[in-house]
Protein backbone atom coordinates (compact mmCIF):
# COMPACT_ATOMS: atom_id res chain seq x y z
CA UNK A 1 0.00 0.00 0.00
CA UNK A 2 1.22 3.50 -0.82
CA UNK A 3 0.59 4.59 2.77
CA UNK A 4 3.52 2.45 3.90
CA UNK A 5 5.92 5.10 2.57
CA UNK A 6 4.72 7.67 5.07
CA UNK A 7 6.03 8.21 8.57
CA UNK A 8 3.43 7.39 11.22
CA UNK A 9 2.47 10.22 13.55
CA UNK A 10 0.29 8.05 15.78
CA UNK A 11 2.19 4.88 16.36
CA UNK A 12 -0.42 2.93 14.37
CA UNK A 13 0.68 0.56 11.66
CA UNK A 14 1.06 2.72 8.55
CA UNK A 15 -0.28 -0.10 6.39
CA UNK A 16 -3.79 0.30 7.89
CA UNK A 17 -3.92 4.07 7.59
CA UNK A 18 -6.69 5.15 5.24
CA UNK A 19 -6.53 8.89 5.71
CA UNK A 20 -3.62 11.02 6.86
CA UNK A 21 -4.28 14.70 7.54
CA UNK A 22 -1.16 16.84 7.58
CA UNK A 23 -1.04 20.46 8.80
CA UNK A 24 -4.44 21.08 7.24
CA UNK A 25 -5.83 24.59 7.48
CA UNK A 26 -8.28 27.01 5.95
CA UNK A 27 -8.32 30.75 6.40
CA UNK A 28 -10.90 32.92 4.67
CA UNK A 29 -10.49 36.58 3.90
CA UNK A 30 -12.98 38.91 5.51
CA UNK A 31 -13.32 42.62 4.77
CA UNK A 32 -11.32 43.62 7.84
CA UNK A 33 -9.20 40.61 8.71
CA UNK A 34 -8.53 36.95 7.98
CA UNK A 35 -10.72 34.39 9.72
CA UNK A 36 -9.09 31.10 10.67
CA UNK A 37 -11.56 28.23 10.29
CA UNK A 38 -9.10 25.37 10.77
CA UNK A 39 -5.38 25.47 11.44
CA UNK A 40 -2.55 22.92 11.57
CA UNK A 41 -4.81 19.87 11.85
CA UNK A 42 -2.74 16.68 11.82
CA UNK A 43 -4.10 13.18 12.48
CA UNK A 44 -4.53 9.73 10.95
CA UNK A 45 -7.53 7.45 10.61
CA UNK A 46 -7.14 3.71 10.05
CA UNK A 47 -9.50 1.06 8.70
CA UNK A 48 -12.10 0.09 11.32
CA UNK A 49 -11.23 3.15 13.40
CA UNK A 50 -13.87 5.71 14.40
CA UNK A 51 -12.54 9.13 15.31
CA UNK A 52 -14.88 11.65 16.92
CA UNK A 53 -14.36 15.37 16.37
CA UNK A 54 -15.86 17.30 19.25
CA UNK A 55 -15.81 20.92 20.30
CA UNK A 56 -18.06 23.88 20.96
CA UNK A 57 -20.22 25.49 18.25
CA UNK A 58 -18.12 27.44 15.78
CA UNK A 59 -14.92 25.59 16.70
CA UNK A 60 -14.44 24.42 13.10
CA UNK A 61 -15.72 20.81 13.31
CA UNK A 62 -17.83 20.94 10.14
CA UNK A 63 -15.25 23.14 8.38
CA UNK A 64 -12.64 20.45 9.01
CA UNK A 65 -14.94 17.74 7.66
CA UNK A 66 -15.66 19.78 4.51
CA UNK A 67 -11.91 20.11 3.92
CA UNK A 68 -11.49 16.34 4.16
CA UNK A 69 -13.57 15.60 1.07
CA UNK A 70 -12.56 18.86 -0.60
CA UNK A 71 -15.96 20.53 -0.57
CA UNK A 72 -13.80 23.48 0.53
CA UNK A 73 -10.20 24.10 -0.48
CA UNK A 74 -7.48 24.05 2.17
CA UNK A 75 -5.24 27.12 2.30
CA UNK A 76 -2.46 25.12 3.97
CA UNK A 77 -1.46 21.49 4.39
CA UNK A 78 -3.06 18.56 2.64
CA UNK A 79 -4.69 15.16 3.05
CA UNK A 80 -3.36 11.80 1.93
CA UNK A 81 -5.83 9.09 0.94
CA UNK A 82 -4.07 5.72 1.00
CA UNK A 83 -0.82 7.65 0.76
CA UNK A 84 -1.80 9.74 -2.27
CA UNK A 85 -2.09 13.51 -1.97
CA UNK A 86 -5.82 14.12 -2.45
CA UNK A 87 -5.22 17.10 -4.72
CA UNK A 88 -3.94 14.62 -7.29
CA UNK A 89 -7.20 12.65 -7.20
CA UNK A 90 -10.08 13.94 -9.39
CA UNK A 91 -12.61 15.53 -6.98
CA UNK A 92 -15.47 13.25 -8.07
CA UNK A 93 -13.43 10.12 -7.49
CA UNK A 94 -12.17 11.45 -4.16
CA UNK A 95 -15.67 12.30 -2.90
CA UNK A 96 -17.02 8.91 -3.86
CA UNK A 97 -14.22 7.30 -1.81
CA UNK A 98 -14.75 9.61 1.17
CA UNK A 99 -18.48 9.15 1.70
CA UNK A 100 -20.11 12.04 3.50
CA UNK A 101 -23.35 11.96 5.46
CA UNK A 102 -24.67 15.44 6.15
CA UNK A 103 -26.56 16.70 9.16
CA UNK A 104 -29.75 16.74 7.07
CA UNK A 105 -30.32 13.86 4.64
CA UNK A 106 -31.17 15.98 1.53
CA UNK A 107 -32.79 13.09 -0.33
CA UNK A 108 -33.49 13.64 -4.02
CA UNK A 109 -37.16 13.46 -5.11
CA UNK A 110 -38.17 9.93 -6.11
CA UNK A 111 -37.88 6.48 -4.57
CA UNK A 112 -35.38 5.11 -2.10
CA UNK A 113 -33.84 2.99 -4.86
CA UNK A 114 -33.38 6.00 -7.13
CA UNK A 115 -31.50 7.72 -4.32
CA UNK A 116 -29.26 4.71 -3.83
CA UNK A 117 -28.55 4.51 -7.56
CA UNK A 118 -27.49 8.19 -7.70
CA UNK A 119 -23.81 7.83 -6.71
CA UNK A 120 -23.00 4.74 -8.81
CA UNK A 121 -24.85 6.28 -11.79
CA UNK A 122 -22.36 9.17 -11.75
CA UNK A 123 -19.71 6.64 -12.72
CA UNK A 124 -21.92 4.82 -15.23
CA UNK A 125 -22.74 1.93 -12.85
CA UNK A 126 -26.11 0.49 -11.90
CA UNK A 127 -26.68 -1.40 -8.67
CA UNK A 128 -28.49 -4.75 -8.84
CA UNK A 129 -31.65 -5.32 -6.79
CA UNK A 130 -29.68 -7.70 -4.59
CA UNK A 131 -27.13 -4.98 -3.77
CA UNK A 132 -29.89 -2.46 -3.09
CA UNK A 133 -31.57 -4.90 -0.71
CA UNK A 134 -28.25 -5.59 0.99
CA UNK A 135 -27.57 -1.88 1.49
CA UNK A 136 -31.04 -1.32 2.90
CA UNK A 137 -30.67 -4.32 5.20
CA UNK A 138 -27.43 -2.81 6.53
CA UNK A 139 -29.35 0.24 7.70
CA UNK A 140 -32.40 -1.72 8.88
CA UNK A 141 -34.72 -0.68 6.05
CA UNK A 142 -35.48 -3.95 4.28
CA UNK A 143 -38.30 -3.64 1.76
CA UNK A 144 -38.05 0.13 1.45
CA UNK A 145 -36.60 0.30 -2.08
CA UNK A 146 -39.83 1.33 -3.84
CA UNK A 147 -40.93 3.81 -1.17
CA UNK A 148 -41.17 7.48 -2.08
CA UNK A 149 -38.70 9.43 0.02
CA UNK A 150 -41.33 12.10 0.68
CA UNK A 151 -43.09 9.64 3.01
CA UNK A 152 -40.11 8.70 5.20
CA UNK A 153 -39.64 9.72 8.83
CA UNK A 154 -36.56 11.75 9.82
CA UNK A 155 -34.70 8.69 11.09
CA UNK A 156 -35.60 6.63 8.01
CA UNK A 157 -34.50 9.44 5.70
CA UNK A 158 -31.14 9.71 7.47
CA UNK A 159 -30.64 5.94 7.20
CA UNK A 160 -31.46 6.11 3.46
CA UNK A 161 -28.88 8.89 3.23
CA UNK A 162 -26.36 6.60 4.92
CA UNK A 163 -27.20 3.70 2.57
CA UNK A 164 -26.90 6.10 -0.39
CA UNK A 165 -23.41 7.03 0.73
CA UNK A 166 -22.48 3.36 1.24
CA UNK A 167 -23.69 2.62 -2.31
CA UNK A 168 -20.48 4.28 -3.51
CA UNK A 169 -18.40 1.69 -1.58
CA UNK A 170 -16.42 4.38 0.26
CA UNK A 171 -13.12 3.77 2.04
CA UNK A 172 -14.10 6.12 4.83
CA UNK A 173 -17.28 7.72 6.17
CA UNK A 174 -17.43 11.39 7.08
CA UNK A 175 -20.39 11.90 9.40
CA UNK A 176 -21.40 15.49 10.02
CA UNK A 177 -23.61 15.44 13.12
CA UNK A 178 -25.82 12.77 11.50
CA UNK A 179 -28.23 12.52 14.44
CA UNK A 180 -28.41 16.11 15.66
CA UNK A 181 -31.66 16.85 13.81
CA UNK A 182 -33.38 13.63 14.96
CA UNK A 183 -35.57 12.69 17.91
CA UNK A 184 -34.22 10.21 20.50
CA UNK A 185 -35.78 7.10 18.91
CA UNK A 186 -34.50 7.97 15.42
CA UNK A 187 -31.10 8.87 16.87
CA UNK A 188 -30.77 5.38 18.37
CA UNK A 189 -31.77 3.78 15.03
CA UNK A 190 -29.09 5.72 13.12
CA UNK A 191 -26.44 5.08 15.76
CA UNK A 192 -27.18 1.34 15.70
CA UNK A 193 -26.92 1.30 11.90
CA UNK A 194 -23.61 3.17 12.00
CA UNK A 195 -22.10 0.91 14.66
CA UNK A 196 -23.15 -2.20 12.72
CA UNK A 197 -21.69 -0.91 9.47
CA UNK A 198 -18.38 0.27 10.92
CA UNK A 199 -18.02 -3.05 12.77
CA UNK A 200 -19.08 -5.38 9.92
CA UNK A 201 -17.30 -3.58 7.10
CA UNK A 202 -14.26 -2.36 9.10
CA UNK A 203 -14.90 1.08 7.69
CA UNK A 204 -12.90 4.06 8.88
CA UNK A 205 -15.25 6.77 10.20
CA UNK A 206 -14.85 10.38 11.23
CA UNK A 207 -17.79 11.54 13.30
CA UNK A 208 -18.44 15.21 14.00
CA UNK A 209 -20.62 15.56 17.06
CA UNK A 210 -21.37 18.03 19.81
CA UNK A 211 -22.75 15.15 21.90
CA UNK A 212 -19.90 13.80 24.05
CA UNK A 213 -21.93 10.76 25.17
CA UNK A 214 -22.42 9.84 21.51
CA UNK A 215 -18.67 10.20 20.96
CA UNK A 216 -18.06 7.84 23.90
CA UNK A 217 -20.53 5.29 22.50
CA UNK A 218 -19.28 5.33 18.95
CA UNK A 219 -15.63 6.33 18.71
CA UNK A 220 -12.41 4.71 19.91
CA UNK A 221 -10.53 7.99 19.56
CA UNK A 222 -11.50 11.63 19.76
CA UNK A 223 -10.00 15.01 19.10
CA UNK A 224 -11.17 18.30 20.54
CA UNK A 225 -11.21 21.41 18.39
CA UNK A 226 -11.16 24.93 19.78
CA UNK A 227 -11.05 27.96 17.48
CA UNK A 228 -10.07 25.69 14.59
CA UNK A 229 -7.10 24.15 16.40
CA UNK A 230 -6.78 20.60 17.79
CA UNK A 231 -6.23 21.01 21.53
CA UNK A 232 -6.51 17.35 22.64
CA UNK A 233 -6.43 13.99 20.87
CA UNK A 234 -6.36 10.38 22.05
CA UNK A 235 -8.64 7.61 23.35
CA UNK A 236 -12.17 8.98 23.62
CA UNK A 237 -12.67 8.44 27.35
CA UNK A 238 -9.34 10.05 28.21
CA UNK A 239 -9.85 13.03 25.93
CA UNK A 240 -13.41 13.75 27.01
CA UNK A 241 -12.77 13.27 30.71
CA UNK A 242 -9.66 15.46 30.72
Amino acid at each position, binding site marked *: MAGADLPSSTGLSTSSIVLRVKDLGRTVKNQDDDKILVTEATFDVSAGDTLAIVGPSGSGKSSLLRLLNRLDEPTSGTVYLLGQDY*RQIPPRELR*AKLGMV*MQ*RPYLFPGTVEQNLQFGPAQRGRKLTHATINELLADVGLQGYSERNVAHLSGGEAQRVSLARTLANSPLLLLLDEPTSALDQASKVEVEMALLKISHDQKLACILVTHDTSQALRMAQRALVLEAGRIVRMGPTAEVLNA
Partner: protein
Amino acid sequence: MLEWWFSDQLQLGLAQAAVAALSAVVLVLLARKRGVHLEKETSVAMVRGAVQIVAVGSLLVLLLHGPGWISSFLLAGMIVAAGGTSARRAKGLPDAFRISTLAIAFGAGSVIAVMTALGVIDSGITALVPIGSMLIANSMNTNGLALNRFRADVVAHVGEIETALALGADAHSSVSPFVQASFEASLIPAIDSLRSLGIVWIPGLMAGMLLSGARPVYAALYQFVALAMILTASGLTSLLSTLLIRNQIFTAAEQLVPLSGR
Protein backbone atom coordinates in the same frame (compact mmCIF):
# COMPACT_ATOMS: atom_id res chain seq x y z
CA MET B 1 -60.08 64.57 -22.51
CA LEU B 2 -56.47 65.74 -22.74
CA GLU B 3 -56.97 66.61 -26.44
CA TRP B 4 -59.39 69.38 -25.37
CA TRP B 5 -56.65 71.13 -23.42
CA PHE B 6 -53.59 70.41 -25.59
CA SER B 7 -53.72 71.05 -29.33
CA ASP B 8 -49.94 70.78 -29.82
CA GLN B 9 -48.77 67.16 -30.25
CA LEU B 10 -45.64 67.61 -28.12
CA GLN B 11 -47.59 69.19 -25.27
CA LEU B 12 -50.16 66.42 -25.54
CA GLY B 13 -47.39 63.80 -25.36
CA LEU B 14 -45.92 65.40 -22.24
CA ALA B 15 -49.34 65.55 -20.59
CA GLN B 16 -50.02 61.90 -21.42
CA ALA B 17 -46.60 60.95 -20.02
CA ALA B 18 -47.35 62.87 -16.81
CA VAL B 19 -50.69 61.06 -16.35
CA ALA B 20 -49.06 57.68 -16.98
CA ALA B 21 -46.29 58.52 -14.49
CA LEU B 22 -48.94 59.54 -11.96
CA SER B 23 -50.48 56.06 -12.21
CA ALA B 24 -47.08 54.60 -11.33
CA VAL B 25 -46.89 56.95 -8.33
CA VAL B 26 -50.22 55.52 -7.14
CA LEU B 27 -48.71 52.03 -7.38
CA VAL B 28 -45.67 53.14 -5.36
CA LEU B 29 -47.95 54.58 -2.65
CA LEU B 30 -50.03 51.39 -2.52
CA ALA B 31 -46.86 49.27 -2.26
CA ARG B 32 -45.56 51.56 0.49
CA LYS B 33 -48.73 50.95 2.48
CA ARG B 34 -47.98 47.22 2.27
CA GLY B 35 -44.42 47.83 3.50
CA VAL B 36 -42.80 47.40 0.07
CA HIS B 37 -40.53 50.32 -0.82
CA LEU B 38 -40.38 50.85 -4.57
CA GLU B 39 -39.90 54.62 -4.40
CA LYS B 40 -36.26 54.84 -5.44
CA GLU B 41 -36.19 52.04 -7.98
CA THR B 42 -39.41 53.10 -9.66
CA SER B 43 -38.59 56.81 -9.85
CA VAL B 44 -35.08 56.14 -11.19
CA ALA B 45 -36.45 53.65 -13.73
CA MET B 46 -39.16 56.06 -14.90
CA VAL B 47 -36.85 59.05 -15.25
CA ARG B 48 -34.20 56.94 -16.98
CA GLY B 49 -36.73 55.32 -19.28
CA ALA B 50 -38.30 58.65 -20.25
CA VAL B 51 -34.98 60.39 -20.89
CA GLN B 52 -33.58 57.44 -22.82
CA ILE B 53 -36.60 56.89 -25.06
CA VAL B 54 -36.88 60.61 -25.87
CA ALA B 55 -33.13 60.75 -26.61
CA VAL B 56 -33.34 57.69 -28.87
CA GLY B 57 -36.48 59.04 -30.54
CA SER B 58 -34.65 62.30 -31.29
CA LEU B 59 -31.61 60.37 -32.50
CA LEU B 60 -33.75 58.21 -34.78
CA VAL B 61 -35.11 61.34 -36.44
CA LEU B 62 -31.51 62.31 -37.27
CA LEU B 63 -30.53 58.79 -38.36
CA LEU B 64 -33.58 57.99 -40.49
CA HIS B 65 -31.72 58.63 -43.69
CA GLY B 66 -28.29 57.50 -42.43
CA PRO B 67 -26.19 54.62 -43.78
CA GLY B 68 -27.17 51.01 -42.97
CA TRP B 69 -24.22 50.31 -40.65
CA ILE B 70 -25.67 52.74 -38.11
CA SER B 71 -28.36 50.14 -37.32
CA SER B 72 -25.73 47.59 -36.33
CA PHE B 73 -23.92 50.19 -34.23
CA LEU B 74 -27.12 51.15 -32.39
CA LEU B 75 -28.17 47.54 -31.82
CA ALA B 76 -24.71 46.62 -30.50
CA GLY B 77 -24.91 49.52 -28.04
CA MET B 78 -28.35 48.35 -26.94
CA ILE B 79 -27.07 44.82 -26.36
CA VAL B 80 -24.28 46.08 -24.07
CA ALA B 81 -26.72 48.28 -22.15
CA ALA B 82 -29.16 45.36 -21.89
CA GLY B 83 -26.35 43.16 -20.55
CA GLY B 84 -25.67 45.72 -17.80
CA THR B 85 -29.32 46.06 -16.83
CA SER B 86 -29.86 42.32 -16.86
CA ALA B 87 -26.75 41.64 -14.78
CA ARG B 88 -28.12 43.83 -12.00
CA ARG B 89 -30.88 41.24 -11.55
CA ALA B 90 -28.20 38.64 -10.95
CA LYS B 91 -26.35 40.28 -8.06
CA GLY B 92 -23.89 37.90 -6.46
CA LEU B 93 -23.43 35.73 -9.55
CA PRO B 94 -19.86 35.97 -10.81
CA ASP B 95 -19.27 37.46 -14.26
CA ALA B 96 -23.00 38.21 -14.74
CA PHE B 97 -22.41 41.23 -17.01
CA ARG B 98 -20.17 39.40 -19.49
CA ILE B 99 -22.46 36.38 -19.58
CA SER B 100 -25.63 38.46 -19.94
CA THR B 101 -24.14 40.53 -22.76
CA LEU B 102 -22.87 37.44 -24.57
CA ALA B 103 -26.19 35.62 -24.17
CA ILE B 104 -28.28 38.58 -25.38
CA ALA B 105 -25.89 39.12 -28.30
CA PHE B 106 -26.27 35.45 -29.21
CA GLY B 107 -30.04 35.18 -28.64
CA ALA B 108 -31.31 38.47 -29.98
CA GLY B 109 -28.39 39.01 -32.37
CA SER B 110 -28.76 35.71 -34.17
CA VAL B 111 -32.54 36.12 -34.60
CA ILE B 112 -32.09 39.69 -35.89
CA ALA B 113 -29.36 38.60 -38.31
CA VAL B 114 -31.19 35.54 -39.67
CA MET B 115 -34.58 37.24 -39.93
CA THR B 116 -33.08 40.30 -41.64
CA ALA B 117 -31.21 38.07 -44.09
CA LEU B 118 -34.45 36.19 -44.86
CA GLY B 119 -36.37 39.43 -45.29
CA VAL B 120 -38.69 38.88 -42.32
CA ILE B 121 -37.32 42.08 -40.79
CA ASP B 122 -36.91 44.98 -43.18
CA SER B 123 -33.26 46.04 -43.27
CA GLY B 124 -34.16 49.75 -43.29
CA ILE B 125 -33.16 51.57 -40.15
CA THR B 126 -36.74 52.55 -39.30
CA ALA B 127 -37.79 48.88 -39.09
CA LEU B 128 -34.58 47.18 -38.04
CA VAL B 129 -33.80 49.34 -35.00
CA PRO B 130 -37.27 49.31 -33.38
CA ILE B 131 -37.88 45.60 -34.03
CA GLY B 132 -34.30 44.73 -33.07
CA SER B 133 -34.63 46.72 -29.86
CA MET B 134 -37.84 44.87 -29.07
CA LEU B 135 -36.03 41.55 -29.37
CA ILE B 136 -33.10 42.79 -27.28
CA ALA B 137 -35.35 44.21 -24.56
CA ASN B 138 -37.33 40.99 -24.27
CA SER B 139 -34.14 38.92 -24.25
CA MET B 140 -32.86 41.19 -21.49
CA ASN B 141 -35.97 40.60 -19.38
CA THR B 142 -35.85 36.86 -19.92
CA ASN B 143 -32.16 36.76 -19.08
CA GLY B 144 -32.74 38.75 -15.88
CA LEU B 145 -35.51 36.37 -14.84
CA ALA B 146 -33.39 33.30 -15.59
CA LEU B 147 -30.34 34.49 -13.67
CA ASN B 148 -32.38 35.82 -10.77
CA ARG B 149 -34.21 32.49 -10.42
CA PHE B 150 -30.98 30.51 -10.78
CA ARG B 151 -29.24 32.50 -8.05
CA ALA B 152 -32.22 32.15 -5.71
CA ASP B 153 -32.45 28.39 -6.35
CA VAL B 154 -28.74 27.81 -5.79
CA VAL B 155 -28.74 29.84 -2.55
CA ALA B 156 -31.82 27.95 -1.33
CA HIS B 157 -30.45 24.50 -2.26
CA VAL B 158 -26.81 24.58 -1.19
CA GLY B 159 -27.37 21.40 0.85
CA GLU B 160 -28.80 19.44 -2.09
CA ILE B 161 -26.07 20.65 -4.45
CA GLU B 162 -23.26 19.78 -2.04
CA THR B 163 -24.89 16.42 -1.29
CA ALA B 164 -24.80 15.62 -5.01
CA LEU B 165 -21.14 16.72 -5.18
CA ALA B 166 -20.32 14.65 -2.09
CA LEU B 167 -21.82 11.61 -3.81
CA GLY B 168 -19.45 12.05 -6.73
CA ALA B 169 -21.65 14.07 -9.11
CA ASP B 170 -19.96 16.52 -11.44
CA ALA B 171 -20.62 20.22 -10.97
CA HIS B 172 -22.98 20.49 -13.95
CA SER B 173 -25.15 17.55 -12.87
CA SER B 174 -25.41 18.92 -9.33
CA VAL B 175 -27.15 22.09 -10.56
CA SER B 176 -28.90 20.75 -13.65
CA PRO B 177 -32.39 20.75 -12.01
CA PHE B 178 -31.94 24.45 -11.21
CA VAL B 179 -30.62 25.30 -14.69
CA GLN B 180 -33.69 23.63 -16.17
CA ALA B 181 -36.11 25.31 -13.74
CA SER B 182 -34.57 28.75 -14.40
CA PHE B 183 -34.79 28.28 -18.16
CA GLU B 184 -38.42 27.18 -18.00
CA ALA B 185 -39.48 29.93 -15.58
CA SER B 186 -37.79 32.65 -17.62
CA LEU B 187 -39.83 31.75 -20.70
CA ILE B 188 -43.23 31.92 -19.02
CA PRO B 189 -43.88 35.59 -19.98
CA ALA B 190 -42.90 35.06 -23.64
CA ILE B 191 -44.96 31.87 -23.96
CA ASP B 192 -47.98 33.43 -22.22
CA SER B 193 -47.76 36.49 -24.48
CA LEU B 194 -47.90 34.27 -27.54
CA ARG B 195 -50.66 32.11 -26.07
CA SER B 196 -52.89 35.06 -25.18
CA LEU B 197 -52.22 37.04 -28.36
CA GLY B 198 -55.41 38.63 -29.66
CA ILE B 199 -57.52 37.34 -26.77
CA VAL B 200 -56.03 39.11 -23.77
CA TRP B 201 -54.12 41.82 -25.60
CA ILE B 202 -53.50 43.50 -28.94
CA PRO B 203 -49.86 44.58 -28.85
CA GLY B 204 -48.52 48.00 -29.79
CA LEU B 205 -46.84 46.89 -32.98
CA MET B 206 -50.14 45.72 -34.49
CA ALA B 207 -51.95 48.79 -33.23
CA GLY B 208 -49.27 51.01 -34.78
CA MET B 209 -49.46 49.20 -38.11
CA LEU B 210 -53.26 49.54 -38.14
CA LEU B 211 -53.00 53.24 -37.34
CA SER B 212 -50.50 53.72 -40.16
CA GLY B 213 -52.90 52.09 -42.64
CA ALA B 214 -51.65 48.49 -42.96
CA ARG B 215 -54.18 45.76 -43.80
CA PRO B 216 -55.50 44.27 -40.53
CA VAL B 217 -54.69 40.66 -41.48
CA TYR B 218 -51.11 41.57 -42.42
CA ALA B 219 -50.73 43.59 -39.20
CA ALA B 220 -52.02 40.60 -37.22
CA LEU B 221 -49.68 38.18 -38.97
CA TYR B 222 -46.71 40.46 -38.45
CA GLN B 223 -47.56 40.76 -34.77
CA PHE B 224 -47.44 36.96 -34.55
CA VAL B 225 -44.09 37.05 -36.35
CA ALA B 226 -42.77 39.57 -33.82
CA LEU B 227 -43.85 37.51 -30.82
CA ALA B 228 -42.50 34.29 -32.31
CA MET B 229 -39.16 36.05 -32.84
CA ILE B 230 -39.27 37.32 -29.25
CA LEU B 231 -39.83 33.77 -27.98
CA THR B 232 -36.93 32.44 -30.03
CA ALA B 233 -34.55 35.26 -29.08
CA SER B 234 -35.53 35.03 -25.40
CA GLY B 235 -35.21 31.26 -25.36
CA LEU B 236 -31.77 31.26 -26.98
CA THR B 237 -30.61 33.99 -24.58
CA SER B 238 -31.85 32.18 -21.50
CA LEU B 239 -30.49 28.85 -22.69
CA LEU B 240 -27.00 30.24 -23.20
CA SER B 241 -26.87 32.38 -20.06
CA THR B 242 -27.99 29.55 -17.75
CA LEU B 243 -25.48 27.19 -19.32
CA LEU B 244 -22.66 29.72 -19.01
CA ILE B 245 -23.49 30.88 -15.49
CA ARG B 246 -23.38 27.35 -14.04
CA ASN B 247 -19.65 27.23 -14.82
CA GLN B 248 -19.09 30.40 -12.81
CA ILE B 249 -20.43 29.11 -9.51
CA PHE B 250 -17.89 26.31 -9.16
CA THR B 251 -14.13 26.33 -8.68
CA ALA B 252 -11.82 24.18 -10.77
CA ALA B 253 -12.01 21.53 -8.01
CA GLU B 254 -15.83 21.50 -8.36
CA GLN B 255 -16.49 23.36 -5.11
CA LEU B 256 -19.55 25.57 -4.88
CA VAL B 257 -18.56 29.24 -4.75
CA PRO B 258 -20.34 31.04 -1.88
CA LEU B 259 -23.00 33.37 -3.31
CA SER B 260 -24.44 36.34 -1.47
CA GLY B 261 -27.31 35.21 0.69
CA ARG B 262 -25.65 31.86 1.35
